[in-house]
């Protein structure tokens, strides 16, 4: 502040007005800083923006005169997505024993691996209760992809399945 008001008094004593020589070179550093900041920003945003997707193939609806494919019921694993991220599962169709598991690494992934090793012709039916959430469906399809080579299908839930889940009281 002091220099602004009385700075000129000192210089006038010398009797000469000196023109300060300024360098002809401009310091480009701030501009380069900004350029690289923008560059980093655009590089980051463009690569992360591409949406990933998962392909879903629904089974075709059987025609009237189509014979259902013959599957040994011992090879059928049924997974039922329940509320609170629970998975109810059972083998076979007649009088099955319903068990419950979850999405942890020791849960459904282990079961799938064991069953796959045990039964090479394993068929997985995925059913969802209305109480389950969308994430469960994506997660279980993801588990199918991770396990690899499984025959899996998204199937509508039946009243029998709902009864089984209710009876199991898990």
């Amino acid at each position, binding site marked *: 502040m002091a220099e602004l008001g009385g700075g000129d008094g000192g210089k006038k004593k010398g009797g000469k007005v000196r023109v300060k020589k300024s360098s002809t070179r401009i310091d*480009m550093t701030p*501009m*380069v800083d900004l*350029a*690289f900041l*923008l*560059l980093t920003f*655009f*590089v980051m*945003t*463009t690569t992360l*923006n*591409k*949406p*990933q*997707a*998962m*392909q*879903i*193939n*629904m*089974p*075709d*609806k059987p025609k009237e005169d189509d014979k259902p494919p013959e599957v040994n019921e011992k090879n059928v694993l049924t997974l039922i*997505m329940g509320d609170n991220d629970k998975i109810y599962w059972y083998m076979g169709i007649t009088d099955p024993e319903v068990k419950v598991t979850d999405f942890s*690494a020791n849960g459904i*992934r*282990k079961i799938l*691996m064991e069953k796959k090793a045990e039964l090479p012709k394993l068929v997985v039916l995925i059913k*969802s*209760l*209305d*109480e*389950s*959430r*969308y*994430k*469960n*469906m*994506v*997660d279980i*399809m*993801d588990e199918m*992809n*991770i396990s690899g080579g499984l025959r899996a299908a*998204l199937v509508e839930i039946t009243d029998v399945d709902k009864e089984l889940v209710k009876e199991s009281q898990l």
Partner: protein
Amino acid sequence: MARIAPPIDMTPMVDLAFLLVTFFMLTATAIPDEPVAVDTPSSVSMVQMPETNVITITVDREGRVFFNVDGQYTRDAVLDDMAGRYGVTFTPQEKRAFVLMSSMGVPMASMKQFLGLTPEERKEITQPGIPVDSAHNELVDWINMTRTVTQNKVRIAVKGDSDADYKTIKKVVNTLVDRNKIMKFNLITNMEKGPDLDAAIANQRKAEKH
């Protein structure tokens, strides 16, 4: 003896930096305003979605369904077809408003009123979602019209919120499969690193030995 380092000419580097900045700025596309924020679940799947000819069906956590298709020409033609089907006529201004929008979740009955609003007003109101019930299903028409307009070149992507009810998802999937006869579609997910399967198997074997 310390010597003064010779000054480095930064010009080529700056040239290159600005060239890249310009390139990325021009290629970057702004994400359009979505009426709802959706937190998609993650998966290890790495399928890339194409950028054009995609119908995006968004399902938010309250179970509302939104429809979006890219391409101004497609949007214009689809709205025309829908207007004919539901007996509504739109003014050129209203059509223009629809073409410039992104996702929308409004039943055809209130579409005219919705398109008459200013963009700011449209952001304010909560959209009720497109009807997907078996009795009153407008989504099936939106998809059918879009498929006709694009000569079946369009792909379907379902973008659901992690916490969305399975009930609504089921309705959307049933619409696609039963009504539109679309067996193949995509679910938009976030990227996630896959588990190390070899390590998992090795661990399991080790556990069995003990």
